[in-house]
């Protein structure tokens, strides 16, 4: 009896141990990938050689297969469009390309892993919001020089303004072929214009009129959220902060992972903690008023829904986003849900606007790529070859889009099957604009262009390597104390703000502030 049981138990123990181990494996597997680091020196070597061969151009005799890393969901008609692309590429540069897509749901986790595991790919989408500085500093990207650029991407080299290259440099070195497109980063709000009219409200064009809109809608429409946000993904700010805190006060936050900003007009760029300002305190009153009037769901911090889908479904009445995204939403609403009338509103129309720097989107070469020349040539074509640019940006003519003249297009019957991923990496002057693009969005943008404010710190990027621990802890404090405070979930605002700042202090905000100021001062000194 005893014996029988021991055997059984041994077996049981094995099973449990193995299954426990297997489940643990999922989490820890990443660290076991051995590194195979093959330096890219052979590439630059051959590159230099081919340059010397003079006019014969690069050696294209060997067919190569390039791999490209993009973020976003894989479009349904990927095979068709990229099949077409590969025919063109085969002809022009004797290469084919295969793209790998990192889905929006978890790209932030997968993207750095692709580099850490040193997977085999040649080109990667990158941006100032998509690990550009981080990976550049960690050595994930190949450094690009004038030689490489002018030799292998002549069209881009000719078309790109010099300032765009300058803006893309990290610590004085270039790692990215930035997109060539002007954008403004200011945020706007999408509202339900039909509801505004229904309740006879003033046009929304300021924080006050917007508050009025939110409160009226919340009071009268049941089962409806007047404002929607998606803070559940770890975003550390109220989604209206960029408008109501930054744009309204003409501040610029250095990095969205810490609450430090400077005033746009302050020539010495003194950095301060935004949570410790009277402006923030006033904004808390504003938010609390909206929250108490049921302007948003009490459980907004646990909401994981896609806010735009909620708006489209008629469940949410407004949200804040980039002008481009909101304009696209508006066009979609007009097409799919004509019964709802939406409108784009700018809550800070008279304030200074900030232009996007070139690193808003771009493409970089993986440091271990074996096909540097061909990769650069591919990016050149993507960005500046009309035929290839049209194909990769809009899909197949007649199916995914209908060209209108040279610079406009209409959505084609299967437009939805080729969209939603980061082909913005090769945005350029060849971009077509959507013929159904809302006129009001164009007007807003035109109005903004003249208010775009250029300031010395535009291209400044904070290097947090000396204060990593503090940045990590400050981010945690923001999530834990600032978010609930801003969404009106804490009854006593004064006490909440005090607690928030106390926690920030112990998380080391002062150390970050000193380090940041030192770097800014050095940056400004270098400009003079």
């Amino acid at each position: 009896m005893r014996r029988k049981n021991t055997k059984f138990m041994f077996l049981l123990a094995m099973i449990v141990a193995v299954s426990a181990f297997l489940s643990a494996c999922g989490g820890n597997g990443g660290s076991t990938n051995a590194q195979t680091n093959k330096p890219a020196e052979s590439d630059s070597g051959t590159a230099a050689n081919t340059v010397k061969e003079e006019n014969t151009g690069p050696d294209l005799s060997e067919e190569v297969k390039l791999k490209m890393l993009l973020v976003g969901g894989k479009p349904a008609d990927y095979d068709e469009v990229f099949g077409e692309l590969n025919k063109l590429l085969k002809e022009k540069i004797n290469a084919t390309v295969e793209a790998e897509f990192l889905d929006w749901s978890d790209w932030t986790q997968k993207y750095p892993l692709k580099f850490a595991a040193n997977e085999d790919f040649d080109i990667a989408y990158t941006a100032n919001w998509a690990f550009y500085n981080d990976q550049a500093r960690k050595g994930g990207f190949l450094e690009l020089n004038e030689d490489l650029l002018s030799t292998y991407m002549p069209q881009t080299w000719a078309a790109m303004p010099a300032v765009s290259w300058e803006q893309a440099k990290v610590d004085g070195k270039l790692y990215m072929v930035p997109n060539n497109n002007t954008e403004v980063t200011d945020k706007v709000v999408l509202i339900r214009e039909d509801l505004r009219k229904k309740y006879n409200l003033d046009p929304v064009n300021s924080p006050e009129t917007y508050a009025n809109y939110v409160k009226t809608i919340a009071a009268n429409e049941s089962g409806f959220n007047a404002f929607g946000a998606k803070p559940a993904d770890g975003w550390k700010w109220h989604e209206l902060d960029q408008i109501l805190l930054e744009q309204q006060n003409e501040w610029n936050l250095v990095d969205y992972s810490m609450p430090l900003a400077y005033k746009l007009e302050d020539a010495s760029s003194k950095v301060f903690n935004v949570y410790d300002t009277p402006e923030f305190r006033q904004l808390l009153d504003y938010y609390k008023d909206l929250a108490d009037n049921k302007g948003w769901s009490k459980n907004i911090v646990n909401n994981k829904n896609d806010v735009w889908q909620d708006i489209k479904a008629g469940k949410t009445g407004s949200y804040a986003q980039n002008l481009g995204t909101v304009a696209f939403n508006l066009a979609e609403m007009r097409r799919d849900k004509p019964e709802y009338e939406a409108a784009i509103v700018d809550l800070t129309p008279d304030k200074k606007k900030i232009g996007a720097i070139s690193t808003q989107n771009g493409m970089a070469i993986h440091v271990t790529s074996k096909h540097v020349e061909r990769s650069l040539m591919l990016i050149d074509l993507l960005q500046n070859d009309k035929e290839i640019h049209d194909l990769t940006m809009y899909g197949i003519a007649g199916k995914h889009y209908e060209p209108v003249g040279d610079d406009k297009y209409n959505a084609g019957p299967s437009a939805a099957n080729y969209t939603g991923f980061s082909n913005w990496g090769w945005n350029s002057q060849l971009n077509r604009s959507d013929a159904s693009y809302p006129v009001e969005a164009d007007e807003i943008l035109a109005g903004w262009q003249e208010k775009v404010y250029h300031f010395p710190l535009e291209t400044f990027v904070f290097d947090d390597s000396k204060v990593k621990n503090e940045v990590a802890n400050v981010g945690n404090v923001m999530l834990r104390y600032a978010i609930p405070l801003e969404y009106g979930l804490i009854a006593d605002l004064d006490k909440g703000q005090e607690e928030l700042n106390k926690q920030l202090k112990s998380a080391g905000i002062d150390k970050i502030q000193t380090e940041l100021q030192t770097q800014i001062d050095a940056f400004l000194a270098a400009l003079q």
Partner: protein
Amino acid sequence: MRSRGFWNDVKKYRTLLLMLVPGVLFFLLFAYIPMAGIVLAFKQFNYSGGIFGSPWNGFDNFRFFFDSGDAWRVTRNTALYNIAFIVVNNGLQIFAAILLFEVAGKWFRKITQTVMFLPYFISWVVVGAIAYNLFNYDVGTINMLLHKIGMESIDIYNTAAYWPVILVLVSAWKALGYGTIMYLAAITSIDTEMYEAAEIDGANIFQRIRKITIPNLMPTVIILILLAIGNIFRGDFGMFYNMVGNNGLLFSSTDVIDTFVFRLLITSNEIGMSAAAGFYQSLLGFATIMLANYAVRKYDKDHALF
């Protein structure tokens, strides 16, 4: 003399040893060899250096964790939650297994088993979504029901005090089927002659459970608990993250080491710092399992793991 004994044993148990080989290889390959990666916890990782070539930086990688001032709180939360899970889950599983064993109807037993097992296969992401629809303030099922019977809504997502109870219940619900089957298998392997003898001696069903089933289950229970104790400092990330998400109001009572570290490092991608956190958990886990095993040995040598 001794070595002859050893080779004799090898020969005698060759079939059993052969069966052991895959397991040993598995752990060697996936648990022992990767252990070298621990060095990352003490290195400033960069791509050009890789795991072994990156420069050392001492205990710098551990600083973010202990500087936060939250290290003690999250460590305590992790251990307390896991202890609660172990006690509640095993208790319920044993209870359910004994009930199922004593129920005669074969069909009833099979169906119940299947129904209990189902939650085990539901992903935490889905469980999180179900929970949101149950608990949310505006349109959640629970609050709707409270309204119907004329009571005030309760704001579950903004009240930290509810969460320890909710999490323990959800964990029990999800793990019940799996554990029950394991215990049921153990009960089935108990010699039926003992029950027959007990019955002849006039023991009623409760006496049989208390005097035969439970004592015979104890070795299994102890092994399972000992194995669980080794992981007492590892929070179930999938569960905590999907149930609580980034809701700062709940962190005080729901933050475990894993979610805390995830939140701090998700934007910085410092492999060394994550490795440091993992190393810290492993060390604590190792210490606990050694202590627990020592305690069990003291009490009864046969029941200890090693």
